[in-house]
């Protein structure tokens, strides 16, 4: 019996106005897999995962989650299905504190007469404990506004949040951006751990050699198209790099072999 993919993308097309950002993309993502998603700047990696996490609705094509067709695209629905995402350029509100950002959209509450009040103690304590593991300095408090944070600290908030709420799928869009060497290693270990726990991990990066070491499978995008989809056993990092450098032209040759 073959295992049914956890997420199945079929013939996806997405337009931003007249701009064709995703072109007939089909990919299967399985539970317990760590998938590297690579490609040049502007290739459409972020756009693809933004469909998976509900931010964009595709213009054409289908997405199946757990065998069921996704009819409505909204981040709330994706989150409720267990898809947690570390976004590349959104995800934090500068005007709110770390703790408030951490729990945005799923705030823990204490009810008094049925009225939900924020559970500040829990929000503060838990968020700072989780985020500290990913490089938040001790002198930064969970009550500080995100606006004050450095790029690495902002990233650590996003990563900590994904770890806290991880469920079935964790999507990481260039998660090691702004991070120091030690934290980078920590995040990479984390990606492997999550996969070993049976989650599906989608890892977007420009570091092909790194992701080749981590991933079970690598998907390469170019100009909105998927140009390669190969297990890391069957393709060396150098070969992957060649595909990206030559804009996917090598692939046709390889497939012809």
């Amino acid at each position, binding site marked *: 019996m073959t295992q049914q993919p956890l997420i199945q993308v079929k013939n996806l097309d997405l337009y931003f106005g007249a701009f064709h950002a995703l072109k007939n993309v089909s990919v299967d993502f399985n539970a317990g897999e760590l998938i590297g998603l690579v490609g040049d700047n502007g290739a459409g990696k972020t756009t693809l995962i933004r469909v998976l*996490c509900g*931010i964009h609705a595709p213009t054409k094509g289908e997405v199946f989650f757990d065998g069921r067709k996704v009819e409505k695209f*909204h*981040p*709330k629905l*994706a*989150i*409720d299905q267990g898809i947690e*995402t570390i*976004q590349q350029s*959104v*995800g*934090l*509100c*500068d*005007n*709110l504190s770390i703790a*408030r*950002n951490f*729990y*945005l*959209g*799923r*705030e823990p*509450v204490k009810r008094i007469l049925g*009225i*939900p*009040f*924020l559970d*500040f103690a829990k929000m503060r304590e838990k968020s700072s404990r989780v985020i500290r593991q990913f490089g938040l300095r001790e002198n930064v408090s969970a009550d500080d506004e995100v606006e004050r944070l450095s790029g690495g600290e902002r990233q650590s908030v996003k990563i900590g949040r994904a770890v806290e709420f991880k469920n079935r799928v964790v999507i990481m869009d260039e998660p090691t951006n702004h991070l120091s060497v030690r934290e980078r290693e920590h995040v990479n270990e984390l990606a492997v751990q999550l996969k070993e726990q049976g989650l599906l991990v989608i890892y977007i990066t420009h570091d092909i050699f790194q992701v080749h070491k981590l991933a079970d499978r690598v998907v390469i995008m170019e100009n909105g198209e998927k140009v390669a989809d190969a297990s890391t056993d069957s393709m060396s990092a150098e070969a992957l790099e060649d595909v990206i450098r030559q804009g996917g032209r090598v692939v046709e040759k390889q497939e012809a072999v």
Partner: protein
Amino acid sequence: MALSAAKPLIRRHTEIGIFLIGAILIVIFASTSDGRWANLYNIGTIMQVTATLGLMSLGVAIVIGTGEIDISVGSTFGMGALAHLWLAARVDPVFAALAAIVVGAAIGYVNGWLVTRTRTPSLIITLGTLMIFRGIAIALTDGFSFSIPYAARNGWTYFLLGGGDVFGFNTALFWLIAAFAVLLVVLKAMPFGNRLLAVGGSADSAHSRGVRVDRIKLSAFVICGILAAFAGALEAGKLGFADGSMGRLMELQAIASCVLGGCLLAGGRISLIGALMGAFVLSSIQSYLVVTGVQPQWFILILGLIVVGAAYGDKSLRNWAIRK
């Protein structure tokens, strides 16, 4: 230096500017009006005006918090007043006020629905509804005014809804305090408030975390409409009559109150207490002009000059606080 110790405080609390301006103006007004401004009766009048303008400003502040703006509140105020007056002559004022609230909620819903569905800037949408509902108010009254017969101006509910005083203050002031307390808790201590400010801070980020951005904005407009219409009902209860022009230009004062009070028009950062202080300052200025016998035709000009001056002063203060 002792002054620079206040810098972090000013940076964190954008409403400090309006409190300083308020304090300075109070001293000036009290010392130059020969007791005509700073007496209990006049302060009571200022508080009544502050209460209705303040309720409206709180609603506008909530909408500003989401990064939108509602300038239709002057007309909503008028519609609330008319609904209240029309019904208060027939049924208990409680039901009249409830009807005014329903009217306000409906106007807010229309605003929020148009803004979120058409993705058109709220400035232009609510400018349109400002004119639409003013037009309806004028058409409804058709040149006359709505009023409650003197015989009906009694009963404790009439008294509680703007028609009477407690401890020398119009009951509207107590409604304002209650609305302020509730909104402050909702904004700071409940999930809805967290999401509302998140939407104003970055709608895209809030959306990516699963926040229903459109619903939050729609709710903010509804809250704003309710507060403006309820303020209109309280004003109607105080005066006992109104014509189609009631609340005209009040929207500008409400927005000025919010901005002077430290609400950032870009969204995400608002101060409810600042908006109230802004309303108090504007009401105080008006009252000063009245008691010192300035000709009414100069009101709006002088008010405008003071608003510009106050905005500039507040901005300078903040720039000073940001500098090392």
